[in-house]
């Protein structure tokens, strides 16, 4: 049993990594729909409901899954069936695999909080994102029609072109931190010139880091095939590009892979430039969180109460909206404002409980001993580690979600590039800029190590 624990930990981390990405995907699909609607002054999806709870259109995502499962899975006659079958699998697998080197916390009882402690983490990320092109390319080729092939060709050409600028801007981070391990890159953004954990220690707040961030982020749009670089889909010219022939869950795999790619790109960008799981508050680092676990829990618990109560009041006021006046008095949807008022108020009460637990000093004492009511003697105290892990994971998730929202935001703001403009931007603008930036960063590192240290 004892020797099985490391393997179980690895398994748990694998499950967590897959779940993390796959849980955010439906949320992003919802954000894409609702966000695009709000940008275009529409209310967006709000029809589907479960027992009258519409949850602002979240139910639509659920209904979508049912729809995609129920749809007929068409195998066209003219495709190369082997490559046609494995293409969506490759696309999805690669995007999920990339996430395994991204750290989402420092340590938990001595276990590294990333699925795989590969020291060449960043190189692994770059390698896996290059593999991602195979899914799209094979889909385009195996579909055996002109439009899909053009989509696949565009995807591969564009991904290969932007890979260069992406790698060169990531190389700036190698130089600045002297390591390719993502855990170390994050660690070096927590410590630095400013007090531990300060926002200004992040790589993005240095001149070369900022330029590298802009280049990396732009290349990430091209790598994930998102607007303004979504020419492989190009529905105006190419029907739907590389996934024209796919239906049902095979299409859903491509669809989810696109969103999973967004999440991975946002995670990697967060890790490289925005301090990963670093809180951004001066002096608040892993050591601080562990030392003051009770205080942190109390602050988080009581701090969450006012916003939750505000949400409850907003939900309660929503019952006066014209929509609820217009529908019949016995309509099932009348329970929605009441449900959400109860939900937010209940969460507020739960957070008061959390805050009280923090004041009583429970989180710092949380141990296997406490859980087993004294049956296990001298059990490990995991409370402080748990608090640190939860705070780090929350900070990391918030940063990733902001990054993902940026993808969506840009998609509904900027129009698609023409293909020659895309290539010109990649080769004539971004590549020289990335090289010049790398040169300046290298000079800075030399100057720093020669004169300042």
């Amino acid at each position, binding site marked *: 049993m004892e020797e099985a624990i490391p393997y179980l930990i690895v398994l748990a981390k694998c499950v967590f990594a897959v779940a993390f990405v796959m849980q955010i995907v439906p949320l992003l699909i919802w954000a894409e729909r609702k966000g695009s609607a709000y*940008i275009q002054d529409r209310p967006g999806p709000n029809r589907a409901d479960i027992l009258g709870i519409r949850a602002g259109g979240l139910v639509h995502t659920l209904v979508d899954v049912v729809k995609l499962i129920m749809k007929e899975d068409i195998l066209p006659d003219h495709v190369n069936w082997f490559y046609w079958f494995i293409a969506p699998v490759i696309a999805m697998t690669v995007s999920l695999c990339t996430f395994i080197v991204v750290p989402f916390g420092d340590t938990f009882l001595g276990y590294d909080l990333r699925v795989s402690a590969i020291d060449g983490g960043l190189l692994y990320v770059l390698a896996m994102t290059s593999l991602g092109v195979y899914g799209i390319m094979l889909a385009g080729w195996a579909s055996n029609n002109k439009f899909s092939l053009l989509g696949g060709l565009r995807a591969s050409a564009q991904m290969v072109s932007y890979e260069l600028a992406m790698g060169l801007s990531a190389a700036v981070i190698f130089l600045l931190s002297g390591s390719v391990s993502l855990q170390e890159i994050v660690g070096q953004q927590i410590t630095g010139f400013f007090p531990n954990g300060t926002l200004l220690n992040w790589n993005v707040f240095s001149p070369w880091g900022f330029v590298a961030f802009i280049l990396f982020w732009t290349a990430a749009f091209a790598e994930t095939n998102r607007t303004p670089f979504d020419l492989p889909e190009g529905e105006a010219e190419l029907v739907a590009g590389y996934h024209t022939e796919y239906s049902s869950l095979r299409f859903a795999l491509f669809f989810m892979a696109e969103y999973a790619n967004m999440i991975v790109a946002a995670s990697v960008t967060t890790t490289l430039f925005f301090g990963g799981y670093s809180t951004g508050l001066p002096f608040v680092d892993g050591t601080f969180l562990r030392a003051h676990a009770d205080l942190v829990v109390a602050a988080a618990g009581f701090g969450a109460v006012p916003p939750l109560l505000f949400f409850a009041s907003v939900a309660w006021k929503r019952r006066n909206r014209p*929509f609820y006046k*217009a*529908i019949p008095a016995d309509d099932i949807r009348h329970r929605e404002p009441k449900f959400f008022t109860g939900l937010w108020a209940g969460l507020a009460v739960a957070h008061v409980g959390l805050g009280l637990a923090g004041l009583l000093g429970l989180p710092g004492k949380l141990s296997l001993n406490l859980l087993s009511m004294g049956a296990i003697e001298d059990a490990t105290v995991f409370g402080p580690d748990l608090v640190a892990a939860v705070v780090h994971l929350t900070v990391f998730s918030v940063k990733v979600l902001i990054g993902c929202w940026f993808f969506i935001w*840009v998609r509904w703001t900027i129009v698609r590039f023409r293909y020659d403009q895309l290539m010109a931007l990649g080769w004539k603008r971004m590549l020289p800029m990335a090289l010049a930036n790398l040169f300046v960063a290298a000079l800075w590192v030399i100057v720093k190590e020669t004169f300042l240290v």
Partner: protein
Amino acid sequence: MNSSEAIYLWEVVKGLALTMSHVIKNIFQPERFRTIEYPDMRKPMAARYRGAHRLLTRPDGAVKCVACMCCPTVCPAKCITIIAGENPDDPAEKFPIEFDIDMLRCIYCGFCVEACPKDAIRMDTRIYEINAFTRQDMVHNKPYMVNLMDGLKPRAETVYRDDPKAAPSGYTFDEKPVV
């Protein structure tokens, strides 16, 4: 194109600011949406909107129509079919045995309403959802057009519960001709 536009990055930032301002405004002021959440909410139609035809009745329940054939004569789409019969109580007066309007052919010009000397037909229902599964069902007959407002009544009560003034005039069954 000046130099700041050529770099493109600043223009991107300006565009992003514009779209985000819309998102924030829409989150805090959902009433900005022009979308009408049909079928839960409906657009209040203008008073002179020409919807589906209805036939008016006298206090005793008989249709006002005297089968004078003015409306089929004036109808440019030739969609009105009237089969006239004699009133057994008053042989001098006719009444329509059949009064059919083929809504697939009707062009909603309102000439039938203008032509009617007895104020027997009106288009003030503001019903615009005129649909059926078969072509035959698209032909509105006499009982259908007489009872048209009964079907509208519960819906009007729902839609205009808080603002009865916005309800269609036909809903109140006022007998004054629409000017």
